[in-house]
């Protein structure tokens, strides 16, 4: 998750749709204070984006081709807790073992889409599966 995505989110939405979704995982590694700090940094980021034109211009230039470190680097070392949280959400696996294991848990065969899965592999699998189902519905409706 990039700063440009975060500045489009209201604090309550960030908390309910990002922090709350992964809170169980976060609490295994972070104290309540650290989670609170990340939330607080998100509010601060919104304020900086609204009040500092140079930051707004810099972030507005970011797109899907911008790298994670580059995007966060333009904030000059601020919002480190928030950056860590977002970095954690994007952590990739060293290999596909755990991903394949997740597939076997839900008794579903892997396909090419598995290569794009991240630490949120199970969520990814569900999305991929849903996509397959939607594709089938689409094909059936055209048939």
């Amino acid at each position, binding site marked *: 998750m990039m700063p440009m995505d975060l500045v489009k989110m*209201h*604090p*309550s939405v960030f*908390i*309910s749709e990002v*922090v*709350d979704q992964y*809170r169980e995982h976060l609490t295994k590694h972070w104290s*309540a204070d650290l*989670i*609170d700090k990340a*939330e*607080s940094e998100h*509010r601060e980021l919104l304020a900086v984006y609204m009040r500092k034109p140079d930051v707004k211009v810099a972030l507005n230039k970011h797109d899907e081709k911008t790298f994670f470190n580059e995007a966060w680097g333009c904030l000059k070392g601020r919002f480190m807790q928030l950056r860590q949280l977002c970095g954690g959400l994007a952590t990739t696996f060293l290999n596909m073992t755990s991903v394949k294991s997740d597939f076997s848990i839900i008794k579903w065969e892997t396909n090419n889409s598995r290569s794009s899965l991240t630490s949120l592999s199970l969520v990814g699998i569900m999305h991929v599966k849903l996509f397959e189902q939607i594709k089938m519905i689409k094909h059936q409706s055209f048939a």
Partner: protein
Amino acid sequence: MADIAVGLDIRSTMDAALINEIDPTTIIQRDGWIVTKNVVVMHIHDQGSWARDLYNELFDIEKQQTLQEISIFSLSIMADGL
């Protein structure tokens, strides 16, 4: 002051049409300014999960008192032009 007005969506009661549109049980009013309870709840949720969870754990009567206090405080700032 502008931040408070925008952040909490505080409106002036001078707008008679606006007052007529709003259910009086959903607003808090003071010195010519109004704010809806829903907006104040969203404002609490924006303060972080700790504040949100504390608020959610309150009894209904305590929630109403909390909304009242936050609203009166912010509306007083607007009314006094601080």
